[in-house]
């Protein structure tokens, strides 16, 4: 098949292969006529290139019809046709460095050739920001890329990353990430150094189809740094800073307020936990105790939170010749979280060697990192009978009772009522919960250029990661006496994953005949194997003097062991072709065939395809050179994308293990569907790229429609089958939206640029068809035809009845009732998925001084705030937690208008699924400010010194009660807030 395809290509190439080589030289200067050192001079469409020397001179051998591309950091790139000349002198102008080359799947392309919707994230925007995890750094950086950070724990992953909306309910929703062509697990991004990244491309439409069955949620292509031709460059970067508490908008009761509130409740016969303090009539049975309580005023924010220190050191050495370019870097990054004992420490090492040797070129690289996270809480502890809540120190800020002391008079930890008898300080001082993450991503690629433009290439990539989680509750901690065996608990789980990919391609990229016809074709195959295994153990009855767990198996409490493994494989064939006529008209098309081990036996191979076209109007002769319309490009694309990230068990009819009366047995457990296949997304995109008024205003607008078919659903089965349901491909969902990216130079002269930039995306999701399946509830929301995914499903809340103090609800007929009945739930309160998202900011550069400010926003979504019912009078918790001062407005007498129900209403916790707790999730956040001074004319051997200061997560505007609106998902419950991080840094270049 491939031979047939290659034959005409080779013939075409032969027609254009008899081109003479020619030597070109020249000098590159800036606008002031000063020589520019280290400017990259590249023959367009090839790897052939050089850099300018100390006098700005260059020499390069090229074909006589070549186009030279001159690019330099901080300057606009220029393309110049050789046209038979032997000397070409160039003047580069300062300005925004326009990204002209975009990494697109298995190829790189000139921006003008692209037909799809691809955003490139400028590394300027993410470099040096002291957040350890790449996905959190990408938040707001590309239109349509929506990231919810989930937690401010240093090094933690984002909880939701969605490109152009959610396309799956039971399948994966995360984008496909590639680092230098190697598919990687996003979960362990924290072990990689974001500063090692050269560029990031986000494929949002059918252009992602080149990744076939992995592409439905979009593709994020990360390219790490490589060496450049030239003398050795050394970059040393150091950064130091502190993390501070973010703002919050909650106001908790003081000791005085809480005691008087509890006194009132006791007098009303409410509050079971108050017996020691107040009698049933509100009088105190023990006035001495009450007095002693009055003197305690514990501030739990002070007890639980702190200022954290961040520091980072980085050394990078790069350089090389055409034969050997190298880039080596090492980084140490350490960050303390704002919750005590939450820390993150990381060391990374990166090396890349690349170059050309005759007709061969090679690229060998390794990104390795090891990180250690200390977590202040133990969310996975199965023996915590009180549930997770008491082991979350963030809840302690809210719940801690101000009249309780952390320590008893003898110095030991008090069992706090607010912590369910545990003690948060004991937890983070004595418990251990650490995650150790080792990650290595490596790739070796070799390519051979048979004739000009025709290359064969093979590469092998590996993504290895090992995650070790360690949890220890020591025997002498308060909770250590409550676990089975009453003497501590130790759990270690080790998970490793070894994924490899082998890719072989044949590609051709060259002009045919004259320069009007550019052909760019790639065909290849790929093998991917993802394997993982994990094992772990739990030990009890620890010896306080030996916490290793050794000997624990001899005790009466049996240790637990666990293990699992997984393996997935994929085989792919792909072919992508593009043709450009006269720099104006681009057409492209591609097809990919994927076979995956997760697909059912009847659907082993999936076919995915895409077509696209674009027109660069400004390259037409009638617009060329127009000063007010510098770029106008119109793009259209359409294609199919798959989601193979589906339940691996779905295709298996299986037996499971059980026992009867001490005998091990097997039973039919699940019914599989041999027809299981990928979910298919059909993606259409129309876009416009433009640059106007002497390139002062640059932007793009995209409109898209994504239709996901065959998404996975639980289809009900007759119970006589032995199963309640089966995962089947059945259902259609749509995401539609518009994305705008814009930047404008408000002011621009030789020394100063002021640029305003921003992006905005709107996405509307709709479940179109459930194929006969009834609406179903998924967590707190309802999935129903005609509703956006994630629509909250709650009983309408009217208010607190001033006459009785009871909460009033609406029934399905619109009548007001005091009865809370979940059959009255409606979907009128929006979805948790934001409709609007984006970012805007201002960049200022005045000679060597630069500054920028960044804002993020999301809007059009609602959150079920599960923290609120706790504060709407949870009578059952009176005496065992603190409350918001809002509760001082509790309804006490008829006629009183208030939001807080009276005692007679009982516990607010019994009516959580109510619109009372739905809050607008919209927010605007001042995400970052940065200012610095970069000295480039340093005496001696130094290239530059860069001094800067920056601050992250400074302020937000939001109507949500409590906490950081960025961390919230469909519900919110005591999430670790993103801290304010202020850092100072100095970079040196030699």
């Amino acid at each position, binding site marked *: 098949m491939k031979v047939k395809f290659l034959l005409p290509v*080779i013939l075409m190439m032969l027609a254009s292969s008899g081109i003479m080589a020619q030597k070109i030289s020249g000098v590159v200067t800036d606008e002031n006529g000063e020589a520019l050192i280290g400017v990259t001079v590249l023959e367009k469409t090839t790897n052939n290139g050089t850099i300018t020397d100390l006098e700005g001179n260059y020499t390069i051998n090229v074909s006589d019809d070549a186009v030279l591309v001159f690019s330099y950091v901080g300057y606009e790139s220029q393309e110049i046709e050789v046209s038979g000349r032997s000397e070409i002198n160039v003047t580069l102008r300062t300005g925004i460095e326009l990204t002209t080359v975009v990494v697109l799947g298995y190829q790189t392309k000139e921006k003008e050739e692209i037909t799809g919707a691809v955003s490139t994230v400028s590394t300027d925007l993410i470099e040096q920001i002291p957040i350890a995890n790449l996905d959190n750094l990408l938040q707001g950086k590309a239109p349509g890329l929506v990231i919810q950070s989930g937690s401010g724990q240093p090094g933690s992953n984002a909880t939701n990353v969605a490109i152009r909306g959610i396309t799956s309910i039971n399948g994966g929703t995360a984008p496909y990430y590639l680092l230098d062509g190697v598919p990687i697990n996003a979960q362990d991004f924290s072990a990689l150094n974001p500063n090692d990244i050269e560029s990031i491309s986000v494929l949002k439409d059918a252009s992602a189809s080149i990744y076939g069955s992995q592409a439905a949620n979009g593709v994020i292509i990360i390219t790490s740094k490589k060496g450049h031709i030239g003398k050795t460059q050394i970059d040393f970067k150091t950064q130091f800073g502190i993390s501070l508490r973010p703002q919050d908008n909650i106001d908790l009761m003081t000791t005085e307020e809480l005691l008087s509130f509890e006194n009132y409740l006791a007098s009303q016969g409410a509050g079971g936990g108050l017996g020691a303090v107040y009698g049933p009539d509100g009088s105190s049975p023990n006035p001495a105790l009450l007095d002693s309580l009055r003197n305690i005023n514990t501030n739990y924010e002070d007890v639980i939170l702190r200022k954290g220190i961040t520091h980072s050191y980085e050394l990078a050495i790069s350089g090389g010749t055409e034969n050997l370019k190298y880039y080596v870097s090492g980084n140490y990054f350490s960050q303390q979280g704002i919750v005590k004992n939450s820390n993150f420490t990381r060391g990374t090492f990166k090396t890349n060697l690349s170059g050309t040797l005759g007709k061969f070129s090679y690229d060998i690289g390794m990104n390795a990192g090891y990180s250690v996270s200390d977590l202040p809480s133990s969310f996975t502890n199965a023996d915590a009978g009180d549930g997770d809540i008491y082991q979350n120190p963030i809840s302690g800020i809210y719940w801690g009772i101000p009249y309780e002391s952390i320590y008893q008079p003898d110095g030991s930890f008090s069992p706090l009522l607010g912590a369910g008898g545990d003690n948060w300080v004991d937890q983070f001082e004595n418990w251990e919960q650490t995650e150790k993450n080792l990650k290595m991503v490596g790739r070796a690629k070799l390519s051979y250029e048979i004739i000009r433009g025709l290359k064969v290439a093979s590469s092998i990539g590996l993504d290895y990661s090992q995650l070790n989680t360690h949890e220890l509750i020591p025997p002498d901690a308060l909770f250590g006496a409550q676990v089975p065996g009453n003497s501590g608990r130790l759990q270690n789980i080790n998970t490793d994953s070894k994924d490899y990919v082998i890719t072989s391609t044949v590609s051709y990229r060259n002009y045919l005949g004259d320069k009007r016809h550019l052909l760019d074709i790639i065909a290849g195959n790929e093998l991917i194997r993802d394997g993982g295994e994990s094992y772990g153990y739990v030990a009890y009855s620890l010896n306080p003097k030996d916490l290793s767990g050794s000997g624990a198996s001899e005790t009466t409490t049996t240790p637990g062991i666990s293990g699992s493994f997984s393996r997935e494989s994929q085989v792919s064939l792909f072919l992508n072709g593009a043709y450009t006529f006269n720099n104006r008209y681009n057409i492209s098309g591609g097809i990919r065939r994927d076979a995956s*081990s997760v697909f059912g036996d009847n659907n082993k191979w999936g076919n995915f395809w895409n077509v696209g076209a674009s027109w660069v109007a400004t390259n037409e002769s009638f617009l060329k050179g127009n000063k007010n319309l510098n770029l106008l490009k119109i793009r259209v694309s359409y294609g199919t994308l798959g989601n193979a990230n589906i339940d691996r068990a779905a295709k298996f009819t299986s037996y499971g293990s059980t*026992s009867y009366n001490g005998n091990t047995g*097997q*039973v039919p*457990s699940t019914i599989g569907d041999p027809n299981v296949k990928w979910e298919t997304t059909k993606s259409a995109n129309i876009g416009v790229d433009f640059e106007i008024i002497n390139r002062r205003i640059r932007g793009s607008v995209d409109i898209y429609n994504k239709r996901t078919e065959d998404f996975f659903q639980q289809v*009900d089965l*007759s119970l006589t089958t032995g199963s309640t349901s089966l995962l089947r491909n059945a259902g259609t969902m749509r995401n539609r939206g518009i994305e705008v990216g814009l930047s404008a130079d408000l002011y621009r002269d030789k020394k100063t640029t002021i640029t305003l930039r921003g992006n905005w995306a709107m996405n509307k999701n709709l479940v179109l068809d459930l194929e006969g399946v009834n609406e179903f509830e998924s967590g707190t929301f309802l999935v129903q035809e005609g509703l956006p995914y994630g629509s909250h499903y709650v009983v309408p809340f009217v208010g607190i009845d001033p006459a009785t103090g009871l909460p009033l609800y609406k029934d399905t007929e619109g009548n007001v009732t005091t009865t809370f009945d979940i059959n009255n739930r409606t979907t009128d309160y929006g979805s948790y998925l934001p409709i609007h998202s984006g970012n805007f900011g201002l960049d200022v550069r005045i000679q060597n001084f630069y500054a920028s400010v960044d804002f993020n926003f999301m809007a059009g979504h609602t959150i079920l705030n599960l923290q609120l019912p706790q504060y709407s009078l949870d009578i059952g918790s009176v005496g065992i937690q603190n409350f918001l001062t809002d509760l001082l407005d509790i309804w006490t007498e008829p006629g009183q208008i208030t939001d807080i129900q009276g005692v007679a209403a009982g516990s607010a916790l019994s009516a959580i699924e109510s619109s009372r707790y739905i809050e607008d999730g919209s927010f605007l956040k001042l995400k970052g400010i940065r200012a610095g001074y970069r000295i480039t004319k340093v005496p001696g051997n130094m290239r530059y010194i860069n001094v800067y200061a920056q601050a992250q997560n400074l302020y937000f505007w939001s109507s949500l009660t409590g906490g950081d609106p960025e961390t919230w998902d469909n519900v919110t419950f005591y999430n670790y807030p993103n801290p304010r991080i202020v850092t100072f840094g100095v970079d040196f270049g030699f």
Partner: protein
Amino acid sequence: MKLNIIKYRYKGVFSVVLFSALMFTSCNNFLDEQPPSGTIIEENSFENFADVQSALYGAYRFTTYNWFVIALNAWAGDNAQRSRDNGGIGTIYFNWTYNSSNAVEVEAIYLRAYNLVLAVNKILDNIDLVEGGTEDEKNEVKAQCYALRAMAHFDLSRLYAAKYTATGDGGHLGIPYLTESTNASSLPSQNTVKEVYNLAIQDLTTAYDLFTDYAVSNPTFISKVAVDALLQRLYLYKEDWAKVIEIGNRIIDNSGLMLASGSDYINMYTPSENPGEFIFKVGLPAGVNFSIPLISGTSNMGDIFAFGTSVNNYIPNAEFAASFDANDIRPDILFTVMNGSPTLDKDFVNKYSGTGFSGTTDQPYARLSEVYLSMAEAYFELNQPAEARAKLDAVRAARISGYVSIGENGTALRDAIRTERRKELAYEGHRFWDLSRWGLGVDRGTTCVDLATGNCTLAADDFRFVMPIPQHEMNANPNMVQNTGF
């Protein structure tokens, strides 16, 4: 010269293509899928006779649906009273407010019983295809499979269909009787109750013929005697009195079982592995909780009545508890009083105390005394009062020390047989259905205090003597017809 270059270039391309081709030759193996851990692929599940044995143990695991047979007859009948401490467990059964979608147990038990049916049908599909196992060994397994299939369907019919006599000849809708393995597309429709009984009798007869020894060697597994006990119960519900007597005599004469008395009676309810007069019970080793999907918090027998010693769920009906003779041994096992916690109700049902109140206990299914009492009922219906009284007295004599025959006659004899059945089989999964069988309503008597609705009586032949078909099944299977009233 140029030609040579072309050849050379072709070679390069060929070598890459060849490399790719080599990759693909192993493609089929490469894509071989290891199932996720914890999964046994069905194709590998029956390879040898040991797998069959393993699958039989697995099938028995599903007999734990009997938990709800016992719970329902306690909660919805008149032997127990909802405790004031009760946090909600079983309330909809006590108040008879279940419908097709408000009761997780209604769905969970339906699923559980059909899990058992599927498990045994899969064994029967595969048993003659596997390696190993003698003819006798295979017959022993097959016999248990047929018997378990009959048992599951009979119990499904008792739960989800009106009693056999509701239309005289059982011509009304019952439940689907599945003699073949279901698959994902199965949408069976209901058989009539008569068909269900006939198929069950057929399966039990097949089982009877396949078994060899007529003895109970281990009551946690189905034996030939257990097949007879099932048959006898089935004929009792069918009101085929002659068959009840015929099979009852076969059990008494041939099984070697004796009515337990004194400490033997007490001990058979403790985890001491004393089989006593048990013919079949669901075996649960002490300390092992069983789980039923969809039902949480109900993982052992004791939970039906109390959570440990702290929360009382159902207390003994006071009138019933007071009705026992002073010399009767049964109250020792049925009732106890806890001092201290809980705060409100201190009378406990003691039958499933196991190792303390939170312990696990085997689930009773069939005992010898039931065989006697069913025969007494049959003799009475056939107007043979002397024989009826003889069977009744045999049970009383085993339970009441110094018992002297009372010598009832007529309706007094009928009522005495019914009362004795209530006492003897209390909390073992009979009472609610016995009342139904006898055409009686539920009357919880003067000590009934309902905390929620005041329902202390359920009229005879009320539609709620039958459970609704689970809404899940109604949604997924258009061939099903919902039971009257739901």
